[in-house]
């Protein structure tokens, strides 16, 4: 292992060598620079390897032949090695990226770059305060020098503003250091820390410390003293911005951390306060940003603010602090550097210009990996860090801070995912991305590093906290494997996917309890059936399979999860996968965004709920939800239930669903509707099984759920009635159906849960079937507006049959399976303590007839349009699963016991009373009885007899042409004016339309508008004037001093 002094020595030596070199030989200078930077990266890499693999001990490096405090000493420990490696690697890659401009600038630019990196490393390594000051000044000068060399003219003013602020900062820092020296008699951080006790309470030392602290914190760009940093982020060359964001921030953070250790816990609240304010403000201001680099700048400020919060929570986090802080830091550094490098490949500076990346799938993958890292999604390090942070904060009761962190994180996810949506969906600029290899390689290295770090953090989390490394779980690995196979044709991947899912089910089916078995069946086998429709797609279908498999992997992991960590990770994975799937639709950009935001919001509630329930315990089995302390239990229940209900689209949280489900691709709609919605129900099942009834301020929460469910069912159905778009109609219908299922769960009795399960199964079958039929029709007709169709029964008979069976089943009319759900429902409510919510649900029931009739009438019956006369039946692969579903539906109608009987027995564990009795084909409850086979036979016999009779008496009936009707004494000739379909239920709207005013949409719209407007107004604080920024800094100092004292 080479001495860390080489970091300094190599940079200085190389810089001076460059000065001696003939200025014309830029190529040689560039080679020397790269070699030096590589060497500088090699030094900490060796140390890191030593610490990690060989168990080396941290070493002190003494200088000037004297021991501290009489001479400067450096330290190389695990943290230092990791940070200097991060800094030097970013520097190396940035230098690679900067090839052209460095060669153009000549050796001076290269020398400045190396000095800057040396300074950053020095900040990390040094243990001497004054030395810290010197390195900071070096960093400031070299940074300003780098900016001075930038091509963008605006960077000049940014650099000058930076110098103004850094002048102020250095004044504070220097005076602070000297007074601290005066008070403690040492400049060495370690001796000062140990000397803190006698001096710590002294006001002079405290004041000196405050000056140092505020100066160093300002290097972290805290709100509001950060306008200068934003200007640099926006205007500097992206490679410098990458350095600035990743390397400089790393160094400054560590400096603050070192100082905080000197100051002691008394200063932690101040760090936390500054951090959280910055996190929230920067995320808010980022919201209205249109410039990509400035947005990244805001995001950087926010991330660093968050890490400052973590440092400020050291008193709670203790030994776990590095795991969390580093997890967030590497996620931030890798992602931000990667994104800045990417921004150099994009020609325009508007967010929508990033659509240019779309032609390069690998770069798209890089982008989303970075976004996932920044938003702390699994399997990246930030995810483990976030989990751990929230666990501890909730365990120690710092709930307000926790809430603020989660709110800020949600806002951040908002603008990042919106950006991702722009990239995939907006019109691509004419000029494509033509990244040179030396520009693209750093990006790829960053992506790779992100994934490797994800694996590494998984291992760390496994060692320290006993969690499973997510990247090692089979379903996720299977899903990610499709990333590598994306070059294969779609049908090969489809076959692989189906095989994998079916095989996994057969490998594991013995492990599930009866309830989980139903869900596993729907997720795996059901998913495989739905995937049959994907054979219809041609080409390679880049990106579809990784996304779909990610969603399925998440769902499988959800069913198999034992503890809260696995559960939550699975939840986020399935959310992410389904988001990508939904985003694939042609016009689904805004809907996918609202989906991911609601889902992440829900996920955060779940996260908070689990953390609150665990009370700080590292391991929290799901079943332990039942033993949560009574004081927090109802809150846990509330958080978790609300989180799960964002997925089932309970009323008020439903506004993402219609667009997301309707705009998705033909074979995606059944996945996200028929299958994905069940994940939310599964969560609710798990929650209610473990926690049962909970009371909050005397209100029984399941009773509240009952009302929510009833209104969800009613309003979902009512809104479906007024849709013109067939897929939106089905989507709203799903909201209503989920309302029913939720209602069953909230009844909290045996049959209620059985009913919910019946809805789970039924809804999977018929909604998948209907979405496929309608999708097939939309594919053939080119529209989803029902009134543009009509009379398709003859042209698309299979689709018609599927829809017919589907609507009979949904409406609950015997003899199909929907009736079973209704029958159990009636028995369940008879056993319930509550009566009034039923009124709403009774009203909801018949409303379903309205939209179901409208669906089948407007599409298949009525008048055929001229332009649709040549429409063909849906493609084979879309029709095939529909027919399978018809068969399934009939089978389930005849023998519900196949699926339900074991669950019925299983539910006896929770509700010993009120189960069903299964005898032969007859099913008996405490109140009534029901014999599905007998019903089917009776109905069939009557139907067939009458049909035969009609055939006999009506054997000479002639088929007539379309317009062989007369009304109003005229023979119609235009299908458009004869097909009664548009605004089909006009009188109904007159009567009950007031119930479907979009209050929820208005509310959420107003909320986002408010955030945007607030961010837009507040960011005017940064007026671009260097003197204002100086005043901001002074105001910041005064405010922190005032609040802190």
């Amino acid at each position, binding site marked *: 292992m080479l001495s860390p002094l080489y970091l300094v020595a190599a940079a200085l030596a190389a810089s001076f060598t460059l000065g001696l070199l003939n200025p014309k030989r830029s190529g040689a200078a560039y080679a020397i620079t790269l070699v030096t930077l590589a060497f500088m990266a090699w030094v900490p890499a060796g140390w890191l390897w030593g610490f990690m693999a060989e168990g080396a001990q941290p070493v002190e490096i003494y200088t000037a032949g004297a021991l501290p405090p009489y001479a400067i000493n450096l330290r190389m420990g695990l943290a230092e090695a990791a940070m200097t490696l991060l800094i030097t690697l970013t520097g190396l890659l940035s230098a690679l990226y900067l090839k052209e401009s460095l060669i153009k600038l000549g050796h001076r630019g290269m020398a400045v770059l190396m000095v800057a990196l040396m300074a950053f490393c020095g900040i990390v390594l040094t243990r001497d305060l004054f030395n810290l000051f010197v390195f900071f000044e070096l960093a400031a000068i070299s940074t300003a020098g780098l900016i001075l060399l930038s091509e963008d003219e605006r960077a000049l003013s940014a650099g000058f503003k930076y110098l103004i602020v850094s002048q102020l900062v250095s004044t504070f820092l220097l005076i602070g250091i000297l007074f601290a020296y005066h008070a403690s008699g040492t400049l060495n951080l370690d001796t000062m820390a140990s000397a803190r006790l006698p001096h710590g309470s002294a006001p002079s030392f405290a004041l000196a410390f405050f000056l140092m602290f505020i100066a160093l914190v300002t290097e972290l760009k805290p709100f509001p003293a950060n306008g200068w940093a934003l200007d640099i982020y926006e205007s500097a060359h992206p490679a410098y911005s990458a350095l600035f964001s990743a390397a400089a921030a790393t160094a400054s953070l560590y400096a603050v951390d070192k100082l905080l250790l000197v100051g002691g816990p008394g200063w932690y609240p101040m760090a936390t306060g500054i951090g959280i304010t910055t996190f929230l403000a920067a995320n808010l201001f980022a919201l209205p940003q249109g410039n990509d680099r400035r947005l990244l700048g805001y995001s950087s400020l926010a991330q660093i603010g968050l890490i400052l919060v973590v440092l400020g929570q050291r008193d709670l986090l203790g030994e776990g602090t590095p795991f969390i802080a580093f997890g967030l830091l590497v996620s931030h550094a890798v992602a931000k550097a990667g994104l800045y490098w990417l921004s150099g490949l994009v020609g325009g500076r508007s967010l929508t210009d990033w659509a240019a990346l779309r032609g390069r799938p690998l770069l798209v993958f890089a982008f989303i990996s970075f976004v996932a890292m920044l938003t702390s999604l699994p399997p990246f390090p930030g995810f483990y860090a976030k989990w751990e942070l929230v666990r501890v904060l909730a365990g120690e009761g710092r709930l307000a801070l926790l809430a603020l962190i989660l709110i800020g994180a949600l806002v951040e996810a908002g603008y990042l995912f919106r950006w991702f949506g722009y990239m995939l969906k907006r019109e691509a600029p004419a000029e494509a991305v033509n990244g040179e290899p030396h520009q693209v390689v750093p990006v790829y290295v960053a992506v790779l590093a992100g994934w490797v770090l994800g694996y590494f953090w998984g291992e760390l989390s496994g060692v320290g906290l006993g969690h499973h490394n997510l990247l090692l779980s089979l379903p996720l690995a299977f899903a990610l494997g499709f990333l590598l196979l994306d070059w294969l044709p779609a049908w090969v991947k489809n076959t692989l996917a189906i095989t994998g899912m079916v095989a996994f089910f057969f490998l594991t089916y013995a492990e599930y309890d009866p309830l989980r078995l139903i869900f596993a069946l729907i997720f795996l086998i059901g998913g495989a059936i739905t995937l049959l429709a994907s054979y219809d797609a041609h080409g390679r279908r880049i990106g579809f399979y990784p996304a779909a498999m990610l969603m399925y992997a998440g769902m499988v992991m959800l069913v198999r999860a034992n503890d809260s960590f696995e559960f939550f990770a699975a939840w986020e994975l399935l959310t992410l996968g389904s988001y990508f799937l939904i985003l694939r639709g042609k016009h689904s950009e805004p809907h996918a965004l609202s989906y991911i935001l609601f889902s992440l919001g829900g996920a955060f509630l779940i996260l908070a709920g689990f953390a609150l329930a665990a009370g700080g315990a590292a391991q929290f089995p799901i079943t332990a939800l039942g033993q949560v302390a009574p004081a927090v239990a109802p809150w846990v229940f509330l958080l978790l239930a609300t989180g799960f209900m964002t997925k089932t689209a309970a009323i008020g949280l439903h506004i993402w669903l219609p667009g997301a489900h309707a705009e998705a691709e033909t074979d995606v709609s059944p996945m996200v509707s028929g299958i994905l919605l069940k994940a939310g129900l599964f969560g609710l099942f798990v929650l209610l099984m473990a926690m049962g009834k909970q009371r909050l301020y005397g209100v029984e929460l399941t009773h509240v759920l009952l009302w929510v469910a009833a209104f969800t069912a009613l309003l979902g159905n009512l809104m479906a009635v007024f849709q013109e778009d067939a897929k939106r109609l089905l989507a709203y219908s799903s909201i209503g159906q989920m309302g029913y299922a939720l209602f069953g769960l909230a009844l909290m009795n045996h049959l209620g849960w059985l009913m919910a399960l019946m809805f789970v199964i039924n809804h999977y079958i018929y909604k998948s079937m209907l979405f496929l039929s309608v999708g097939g029709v939309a594919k053939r007709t080119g529209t989803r507006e029902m009134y543009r169709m009509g*009379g398709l*029964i003859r042209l698309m008979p299979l689709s018609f049959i599927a829809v017919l069976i589907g609507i009979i089943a949904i*409406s*609950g*009319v*015997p003899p199909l399976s929907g009736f079973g759900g*209704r*029958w159990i429902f*009636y*028995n369940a*409510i*008879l056993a319930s303590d509550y*009566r*009034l919510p*039923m*009124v709403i649900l*009774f*009203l909801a*029931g018949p*409303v379903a*007839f*309205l939209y179901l*009739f409208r669906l089948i*009438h407007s599409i298949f*019956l*009525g*008048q055929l349009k001229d332009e649709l006369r040549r429409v063909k039946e849906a493609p084979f692969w879309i029709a095939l699963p529909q027919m399978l579903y018809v068969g399934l539906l009939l089978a389930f109608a005849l023998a519900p016991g196949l699926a339900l009987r074991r669950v019925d027995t299983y539910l006896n564990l929770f509700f010993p009373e009120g189960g069903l009795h299964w*005898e032969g084909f007859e099913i008996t409850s*405490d*109140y*009534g009885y*029901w*014999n599905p086979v*007998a*019903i089917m036979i*009776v*109905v069939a016999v*009557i*139907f067939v007899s*009458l*049909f035969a009779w*009609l055939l006999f*008496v*009506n054997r*000479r*009936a*002639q*088929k007539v042409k379309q*317009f062989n*009707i007369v*009304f109003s004494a005229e023979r119609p000739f235009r299908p458009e004016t*004869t*097909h*009664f*379909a548009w605004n089909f*239920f006009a*009188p*109904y709207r*007159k*009567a009950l339309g007031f119930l479907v005013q979009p209050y929820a949409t208005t509310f959420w719209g107003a909320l986002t508008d408010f955030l945007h407007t607030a961010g837009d107004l507040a960011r005017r604080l940064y007026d671009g004037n260097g003197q204002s920024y100086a005043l901001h800094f002074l105001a910041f100092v005064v405010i922190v001093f005032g609040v802190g004292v």
Partner: protein
Amino acid sequence: MQFDWMKIPYALLTLFIVVNFGMILTALVAKIAARVGRRRGIRIWQNYADLFKNYGLRSSITHGAMFYLGPVFRLTGGIGLLLFVPTIYGSYVFSNLSFAGDLILALYFIFFGTLGMALGAAESGHPHAAIGVSRGLSQVTTAELPLALAVFSVALQYHTLSVTAIVAAQQGGIEHWTLFTNPFAVAAAMLAFLGSMMRPPFDVVSAPQEIPIGPPTEYHSSYLAMMQTNRAIFPIAKIVVYMNLFFGGAASWPVFCLKVFLIYMVSVFIGVVFPRFRVEQSIRWFLIWALPLGVLAIVLV
């Protein structure tokens, strides 16, 4: 489970009696309604004549498969509803096929014929048919609500969903009828009954002057004959449910005839007195007048 094959001829016997009773009853009701308007009205066997005529008509067209099946659905719904409910209390012969399911089956089977019929009518492509369906479905959403609440209330009251058990609980004198033990439920249910009988003020669905008879407008000859058969059966089948739930059921055919007639007459009385509601008016009417009764019924039971 052992199926008693004799149930089939017994069920057919019930069907036979009810069809004939229905034919005569509807004619009688039509006559009464005519007399209120100072007209002579139809002859009492007019329904038979129409039926034979329609079955005998030679001209016959079809608009497609669903159109063809519409009347089959319709009549299946009527017959099924009749046979899923025991007609005569205490009689094995006339217990029909009620072993297949309880009250909930009957309630949901009401929609079987309606739905099929609506689909068939819609395939004719006739706008009046579609308009009629739109009106009918709109109206039914709130018209059925009081009935659903009343049924819920009755099931709560008797702790069972078995029609036979509900009738059994009302035996032993008129004061044991649900009518007296649970008057709010019965009141709510009877208002719903008005909404389902296709008589004024709730007959905008088939509004003869406006959208000539609405959904069935394109049906003729044997289709129409089947639907006429249903028109004889279906109201009776529905009334049987009401009779069993609220009015003590019937232990013999004479009682059956009397009760069915009287219940039927409720809708006739109201129908000849009141003018027609528009759809949104009847929706509001049910929500304002019938719904509170239903809510009271489930709260007070």
